[in-house]
């Protein structure tokens, strides 16, 4: 079943046409990877889906679970169950680990006072489950997020996203700047999250690492889809890999 359906979107940064007639779909329960060189439009695509601006989506439709979310603001899209682990993690550096996680609770607690009818498909992973999943974060609950190592910050960003109501987890370059053994730990975390039933859309420059865990791959070049298919097909397609991924 299709969970996310992006249909022929065009995205602009000011006048520059950064996403061109891009379509992709993400199936429920799968890991879908969005690959391509730096500047191919991967991060911009995730921003379009999450409702962050810029880029402005000027044409095309984005549907999530059958609902058109193209023109919704990011806070409403997040509540629908799409969470983003952005590039460079963007944890709140002056807040503690526990406070970073607690922010997601404020949405649930304040649902009424914010004047919104919130109808979560699920409640997100509980705090105790998160600390069980990521014991390092448990040890560092009262530490400021800015003092964590790169790998720990990545774990916190993923944990924060899982603590939201998450049906679709979007990860933007989760391996960036991490040492090889930390990459393995993050990879394992992503596998476990996927096995627990969360759908994942993964953006990665490290194509070899991404193909290892993805079910389906899209390759982008200059804002357009140039390949789509199962990960094994891309593994075998040396021409596409040479031309667009350099691996």
């Amino acid at each position: 079943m299709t969970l996310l359906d992006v249909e022929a979107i065009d995205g602009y940064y000011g006048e520059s046409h950064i996403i061109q007639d891009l379509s992709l779909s993400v199936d429920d329960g799968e890991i879908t990877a969005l690959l391509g060189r730096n500047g191919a439009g991967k991060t911009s695509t995730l921003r379009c889906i999450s409702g962050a601006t810029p880029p402005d989506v000027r044409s095309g439709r984005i549907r999530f679970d059958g609902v058109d979310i193209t023109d919704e603001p990011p806070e409403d899209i997040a509540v629908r169950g799409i969470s983003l682990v952005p590039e460079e993690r963007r944890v709140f550096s002056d807040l503690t680990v526990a406070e970073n996680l607690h922010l997601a609770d404020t949405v649930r607690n304040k649902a009424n006072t914010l004047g919104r009818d919130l109808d979560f498909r699920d409640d997100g992973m509980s705090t105790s489950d998160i600390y069980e999943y990521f014991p390092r974060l448990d040890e560092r609950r009262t530490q400021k997020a800015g003092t964590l190592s790169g790998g720990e910050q990545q774990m916190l960003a993923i944990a924060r996203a899982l603590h939201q109501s998450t049906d679709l987890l979007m990860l933007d370059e989760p391996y960036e700047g991490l040492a090889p053994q930390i990459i393995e730990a993050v990879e394992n975390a992503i596998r476990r999250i996927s096995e627990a039933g969360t759908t994942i859309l993964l953006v990665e420059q490290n194509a070899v690492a991404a193909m290892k865990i993805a079910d389906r791959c899209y390759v982008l070049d200059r804002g357009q889809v140039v390949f789509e298919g199962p990960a094994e097909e891309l593994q075998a397609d040396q021409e596409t890999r040479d031309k667009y991924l350099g691996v």
Partner: protein
Amino acid sequence: MTVLADILTILLNGLQQGAIYVLLAVGLSIILGTLKFVNFAHGALYLIGAYLGLFITGQVPLSNGQLADWGIEAYGIGLGFTAALVLVPIIVFIIGILMERFVARSFYDRPDTDQILVTFGLAVIVQELLRALLGGSSQPFPQPGWASGPISLPIIGNFPRWRLGVIAITAVLVIGVYALVEYTDFGLIVQAGTLDEEMVRLLGIRLSRPYLVVFGIGAALAGVAGVVGGPLANVNPNIGTEQLVPAFLTVVIGGVGKIEGAVVAGLMLGTLQVALIQTGYAAWSQVGIYALAAVILLVRPQGLLGSEVDVA
């Protein structure tokens, strides 16, 4: 008078002078830090607070201005000072909320220069409207009965009771705002919004309501500053603009968005100013606070307690 008594008197007066700066700067700083909005109308909120305080407290005779020309001889409802102290922050909170919704909000995404122009224009309108209606002459603001006259303190001797009142009221309010920001979910959202607004929204948190409240609280603090500061000097239409510059200085010295920073910086400026005046260098007091500001900002461009990310 001993030297010790002199020093303590300067410190206490400095604390009182600084308290007014702190009240103004805390609101200005959280608005600037959280909403990234440069509010040059913050002094006008102080001015409104002072005039509203006068209006609620007593009966003020009118000698010139448009209202006098229309034959109105006095204004005021005479409910007393305590009523003013309670009502003014509520009314100015509402004014702040209206200002956010109808003026500030549409300027959040526009350059600082646009924000400065529109808020400065608003400040001038408020100031000149008051001058046109009520006349430009200075009005004495009576001290509250329960806090007038001197109090006898050890070592120092007699000290104006109201000045201690100003320090106490400021301390209570600033601690209250600090607790709100540090220990509540509302405060957590505001702090996170100050650090990375887009990320907060991506977590599903709607920021328009918290921003409205932040603006209202900042405005209410400026209104209170007008009421407690009023009895320390006369009230006239220029006092808002006069307070705006030291308030901004306090914000940048303390570090944008930092309540503790505004407190430390406000008390430093107040004490320095009072020290120069009471030691016979009154003419140098303005030079002194700007020189202090320049030295601090040369050494720490982000302000005393500001984090480096805030500079960008």
